[in-house]
Structures are given as C-alpha cells and as structure tokens.
C-alpha cells in the first residue's frame, strides 16, 4: 500500500507565494499520478487547451472516470480535479474566464471603483438554485459569510478575507451587492472565478448544516442525483438552468453524467477500451501517451503549473548571474520531456502560460545552448553545486538528466534528496540553506501572482532575488486594471528576468482528458486553476 502526501498540498502552499517571471520551473514533489489538485482561489492558473470543434448535440449520458475519489464538494474547498469536475457541474462561479478574459457569469456585472477597493455586483435575474430558492443578494452575502466562518475551515478564508464588508442596497431580495475590500485589489473578479465564487443555496445550508458537503445544492447545470463515496457520483441535468450556448441551445447538453473513481491508471485505459467509461481525466503523462497509442483522443491541458529549478541568488555559486545563465543554457528541456514525460509535455520559458496575454515570447530567456554554457563555465573557472530534491521517480529522472547535461559542459553537480516534509520546510524556512533545488510552481491568469516570488525580501521570494526595477514594475502593475499598461510592465519584467535568470522553468505540467471520440464530442476548454478539470455543462455525447 503506497501512501504519500499529495503534492498538491505543497502546490497549494506555493500559490499566493510564488514565482517567476522570466523563466523558471521546478518540481516540488513528484507526480501525483492519482491525486492532484489543491490550489487556492487567490488567482487563477492559466491553461492552454486545444480548441473544441464539432457541433454539440443535446441529450445522452456519459461515464467520466477520475483518478481519485471525491474529497469534498463544498464551495471554496473543492480543489482536486475530481472535486472540481463535479462542483463545476453543481455550481456556477460568479465570474468566469472565456478565452483567457474574465467575464461576469452568475453575476451579470461587476464594476470596480477607480481605486479598486469598492466593487458593485449585479446578479443575473431569474436564476434559481436546484431547490428553487431564488438567487439574490442575500444568498451571495450568506455565501461569503460562510466562506470566512472559522467553523467552516475554508482554505479560501485568507483570500476571501479581503472582503471587508458587504451591503445590499436593494435589500436581501434584491440583486445588488456592494463589496468594500480591506484594500485595493485588481484581482477581485479573479477570486470569484474559482470555487470561492460558487454560490450555494442558503436554504439547503440552513437545513443540512455540515451535511451540505455530501448533498450540495447550487445553481449549476446539473443536480446531484446520487453520491456514493468511492463508487460513483451521478449528476442529472437541471431543467431550470439559466444558461444556453451561443446557438441558444439549453445547457447542459447531457441528460446525465456519471463520475466514477478508477485509481489504477492502466485500468482507466482498459475501461475506455471495453466501453465501461467514455472519458477520463489524468495527470499522468504516460497514461496520455499510451491512450493515444490505443487510438483514443486526448485533450491536453498545459500551462497551469510547471516544474522549476530554484537557484539561491544570495549565495555562491548562483549569486553570480553567469552561473545562473550557464545552467539555463546547459539544460535541454526536450530531453527531459522525452525521458521523463514520454514527450507529451511542453518546455516552459516563462512564469506565465503561453496563452496568457502577459506572456512575453521575446523575453530572451536562455534556451538550450551547450556552447554558451561551456563558455560561461570556463569563464567562471568551473561550476560546482549541489542540486537537492525529494526522492520520487519523477524528481530522480530530472535530477539525473540535469547532472548529465551539466557535466557535459564542465559543471560538477552533486545530487541530494530529502524527504518531502523536511524538504519543503527547508526551502520555505528562508534561511537559504540550498544552492539549487527543484520545485513546482503554479501559473495564474491574474499576473500579480508572480509578484511575491520576485519582490525583494518578500516571504514568497524563495530564491532571494533582488532587483529594484523589477520591484517597482511589479508594484506599479498591481495598481491599475488597464490591461495594456500592465502588459507593458510584465513584459519588461520578463525581459529583465530573462537576462538575470533568478530561477529556471523546466516543463509545463500536463493534464489530460482522454476520451473515445466515437462517443464523446471534443471537451470544452480546461478551467483555469482546476488542474485539467472542465465544465461538464458543455460536455456532449456524439449523437446525443
């Protein structure tokens, strides 16, 4: 029996803290294989998804397999991919991302004041919860009060805590809520796009108490029809759902969606072959590759996080920019991709996903160039360092390859592994007790998420990087919601970090939805911040 701490806990720790601008990636803890998820809601990860094609048809049912059983279906708490998939069916977030842009969703509009501290939300009219309770200001206010209630113990309490007070100018039955934040926040709409923004039925919460977690009631496209932990969750179309697709077809497309956990990765592919399931989600690159070999279709969702190598900028040898550049030039990410990830991942040269509007493709981040690496090493008169990571097969594979690549250009690399808990404490303790270390970092649509990781003396700056121009640019960029102005500043930050290499991003993590194209239409794009989960309301069966 294998038991390990899920890496998402550490991914979760990282969010809000971390990283990157120019290049940088790592690995904190190894592939979860079965159990991933867990990001907070302070920012949304960006994702790259293949565009769906084909015409959706209404009707039919599908069986969707997940890697792990449900942990929770509560708003604010749902984080791992299986929980996300189901809750995205039962609930609607107040805002959502469409093609990388944030738009109101369950809210009809959300307007910020000039100083970004007061936000006025108007809700959609005529929306009802599955128990026929109407969606109104009262429901929204009760929702956020519940999220910060210590007894509810929400991982989102810190990020939702930015709401200082809420007012209902049209009364509780009205549709307007005015949020006064504790300080200016350009990322408030982004907060509402994650599970913190899923509004639950206040009637059901009052009636069920703690039992709401296993009988959730939302406004989403599906009602929960059956929930047997470890066995299955059955979702049935909610006939009173408010949303239609662009052609005016009533959502959801499916009449029924059954979600089953299949922990064994090989068995997920087998079940797809025997027709016992129609589609499954996975974080395991090898599974995606083997399913494709069997002739199944795979929707690959990349860019929500990546593996990175942290470099200690405050201490020799990586206090010298040439040493950091040398290592960046020495690493061939394609080889890591082929040897460790069956070639299905994508090399990462930025702290942003490639489809983020803030991603600067011309930042000049070092690409594989062994000759330049060799020159720099010669100039330095050699480069000796210790690279530390946790002992997982994934990390081991990366470490061995980096060692080989470094030694080919004259570096001398010592490898060290340390048990995960102690390792994470060591990196987070900020006493700088490392030279180079692997880690995993999340990427967000909201670009301010990179600020702590690069700001001088910020607790989230794990690499001890310091550049006053970067500090200033990042601070200015969060004072405005003007996209063009922000873009300019983040592009400049990426140019600087591309030159100075505070850390090295390695490869974007890959999440896959593997499906039988004879039975399932191309899935909708991956949700931001959801580790590959999709909105099931837009999933359709071929032929209905």
């Amino acid at each position, binding site marked *: 029996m294998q038991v390990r701490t899920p890496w998402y806990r550490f991914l979760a720790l990282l969010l809000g803290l971390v990283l990157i601008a120019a290049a940088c990636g790592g690995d904190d803890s190894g592939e979860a294989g079965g159990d991933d998820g867990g990001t907070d809601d302070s920012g949304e990860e960006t994702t790259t998804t293949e565009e769906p094609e084909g015409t959706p048809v209404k009707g039919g049912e599908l069986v969707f397999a997940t890697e792990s059983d449900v942990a929770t*279906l509560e708003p604010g708490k749902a984080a791992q991919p299986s929980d996300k998939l189901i809750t995205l069916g039962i609930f609607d977030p107040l805002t959502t991302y469409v093609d990388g842009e944030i738009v109101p969703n369950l809210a009809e509009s959300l307007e910020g004041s000039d100083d970004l501290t007061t936000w006025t939300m108007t809700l959609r009219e005529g929306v009802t919860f599955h128990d026929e309770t109407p969606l109104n200001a009262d429901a929204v206010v009760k929702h956020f009060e519940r999220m910060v209630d210590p007894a509810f*113990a*929400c991982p989102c*309490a810190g990020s939702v805590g930015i709401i200082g007070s809420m007012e209902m100018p049209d009364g509780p039955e009205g549709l307007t809520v005015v949020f006064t934040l504790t300080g200016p926040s350009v990322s408030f709409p982004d907060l509402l796009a994650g599970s913190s923004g899923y509004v639950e039925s206040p009637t059901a919460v009052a009636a069920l108490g703690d039992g709401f*977690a296993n009988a959730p009631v939302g406004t989403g496209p599906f009602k929960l029809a059956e929930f047997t932990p470890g066995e299955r969750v059955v979702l049935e179309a909610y006939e009173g759902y408010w949303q239609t697709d662009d052609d005016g077809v009533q959502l959801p497309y499916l009449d029924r969606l059954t979600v089953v956990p299949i922990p064994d990765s090989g068995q997920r592919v087998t079940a797809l072959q*025997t027709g016992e399931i129609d589609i499954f989600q996975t974080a395991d690159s090898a599974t995606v590759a083997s399913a494709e070999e069997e002739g199944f279709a795979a929707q690959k969702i990349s860019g929500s996080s990546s593996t990175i190598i942290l470099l200690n900028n405050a201490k020799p040898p990586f206090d010298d920019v040439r040493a950091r550049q040398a290592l960046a030039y020495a690493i061939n990410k394609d080889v890591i991709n082929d040897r460790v990830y069956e070639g299905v991942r994508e090399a990462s040269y930025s702290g942003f996903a490639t489809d983020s509007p803030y991603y600067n493709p011309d930042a000049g981040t070092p690409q594989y160039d062994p000759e330049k690496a060799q020159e720099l090493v010669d100039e330095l008169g050699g480069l000796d360092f210790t690279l530390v990571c946790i002992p997982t097969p994934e990390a081991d594979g990366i470490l061995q390859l980096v060692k080989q690549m470094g030694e080919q250009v004259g570096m001398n690399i010592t490898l060290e592994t340390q048990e995960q808990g102690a390792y994470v404490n060591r990196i987070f303790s900020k006493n700088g007790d490392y030279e180079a270390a692997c880690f995993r970092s999340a990427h967000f649509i909201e670009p301010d998420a990179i600020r702590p990781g690069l700001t001088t003396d910020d607790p989230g700056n794990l690499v001890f990087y310091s550049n006053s121009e970067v500090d200033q640019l990042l601070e200015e960029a969060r004072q405005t919601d003007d996209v063009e102005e922000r873009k300019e500043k983040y592009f400049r930050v990426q140019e600087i970090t591309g030159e100075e290499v505070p850390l090295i991003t390695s490869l974007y993590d890959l999440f896959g939805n593997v499906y039988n194209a004879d039975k399932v239409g191309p899935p909708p794009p991956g949700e931001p911040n959801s580790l590959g989960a999709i909105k099931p309301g837009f999933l359709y069966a071929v032929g209905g």
Partner: protein
Amino acid sequence: MQIVRTVLERVAKLVIVVLIVSFLTFLLTKLLPGDLTATLLGPEASNPEAVAALEAELGLDKPMLVQYWDYISGVVTDFDLGTAYATSNFPVKDLLTSRLPATIQLMLMAQVISLAISVPLAMLSAYRANSLTDRSITAGAFGLISVPSFAMAVFLVYLFSLQLDLLPALGYKRITGPDGIGANLRSVALPVAVLVAGLTAVYTRLLRSDLIATLQEDFILMARSKGLPTWHILLRHALRPSSFSLLTVFGINFGSLIGGSVILEYFFSIPGVGLLAVESIGKRDYLAVQGVVLLIAVAFVVVNFLVDTLYAVLDPRVRRAGAR
C-alpha cells in the same frame, strides 16, 4: 456452566484486545506525518488562528485521553464512529456500511469457492501421493502461489475483458442495482477468481500434507483392513483430524479479507473497505482510518473466537481440556 464460564472469559479477553487495538490505532493516527487540519485548510494552515478554530471544532484541542474517551464512548453507546471530514463530511459508519457489502461478498465467495475446490483436490493428491496426479496438483498450486495477485489480475483482465470481452474489467455492481444479481456476479468474477487462485493453492497444499500424515496413522490402516471404501475413509476418517491447519489459516483469512484485499480493490476499482483505508490514509482522514482498523480488529477477534470454538467441535481432546 463450565462452558458458559469459558465463553465469558474469552469474550472478556476479546473486549480487552479490541480496546487495546483501538487505543493504539488512535495513537498511530496521531503519529502519521501530516495532519487533518493541514489537509482541510490548505494554504490557510499557515494561519494559526484558523488552525486553532478548526481544532476546537474537531475537538482536537482536548487532551489526548479525553479525545479517546469521547471517541470510544461514542462508539460503544451510539455506534457513532465520527465524521469523515476529508470525505465530504460523511459519517464514518455510513462509509463503512456502504463499503462492507463488496468486501464481504468478495471474501465469502472467494473462501467458499476455494474451499470447495481445494478439499477434493487435496484428498486426491494425498491419496495418490507422489503419483503424476499429485505432482501435477502440487506443482500447479506452487505455481499459483508464486504469481502475485496483481499480475494474475492484469492477465485475467487482458484475457477475459480485452480479448474475449466476456467480463467487465473493473467496477462493482450492487445486487440491489438495476441489473440485479447477474450484473453483480459478473462484476466480481475477476477479482474473486484472483483471490480463489491464491487461496486454493494455499489450502490445497496445507490439507494435502496434513492428510498424508493422517493417512499413515494406525486407525486408517484399521479402516482399510475393514474394507471400507476409499472415499469413506478419506471423508469420514481422515479429513476431520487433518483439517486443523486448514481451519486456522481459513479463519485468519476471514479476518484479513475483511480488511479488503487492498491491491485488488484498488486495481478493480471496487468500493470496498481496503480501498477506503487507502483513500483515508492519503487524505489524513483519521476518523475513517480508525473506523476501518477497529472493524478489522473486531472481525479478527470474533473469527479467532469462532475458530477456537470450532477446534472443540473437531477434536474431542480440546473439549475435554476445556472441561477440566
């Protein structure tokens, strides 16, 4: 009266054993690296106020012995095993009762079928010791013992699900489900087959060697010289005195199978007790872990009690020893 006293003494011992096990489990779950508050709170776990509030909510701020007392008294008085906080707040009792049917069905079917196969095989083998039949059976059993269950599972799935398309590759259909007992039996066919292969091999070898020893005894020679038919000798005279090792192992297997065959439940995605244990440990859902371990402990203890009682039925000497 003597019998009643013996039984009562044993029951008292059983209760003590279960209490000790439950306390040790309680301690163990506290020693697991990682904790429930961190799992539930995620990034908020760095906020001491949030941790304190949650600990108070879950009763984790009380002294350890008080926590144990609250737990065990809840179990005894209301059969309340607590709430599985990391599994959508389901009561642990409900989780266990929803997981038990699959595990119990696998266990019973595997035990009964393997016994039904191994007893005749062992008798055939022992009666014709060292014949070609015996050597084939012994070698076959040895082969089956050597194959790990997961390898057997992969092979059977490949053959019966992917190639022949006869049986489902995974999942569990409840008898009460819409497709009834047929679908139920088909869904458990492969995991039961894997269990049966392993158990049959062990039972056959055990019973065969005990039977061979028994068949050397004088009373068997006596029976033969009286001209009794072979089947009569094997069944009525040799089987009973040869079945002690078999019975012991058979009983222990009941206990261990109630914990679920973790590997098989994982591989076949069967919502049984073993899979619940794995999931709960992964999520640090310590009350669910405690519930599973308590269930296994009680099952072991009860089965061992029954086996001890059966010894007395099988062997008059045990009965007489008890009466002394």
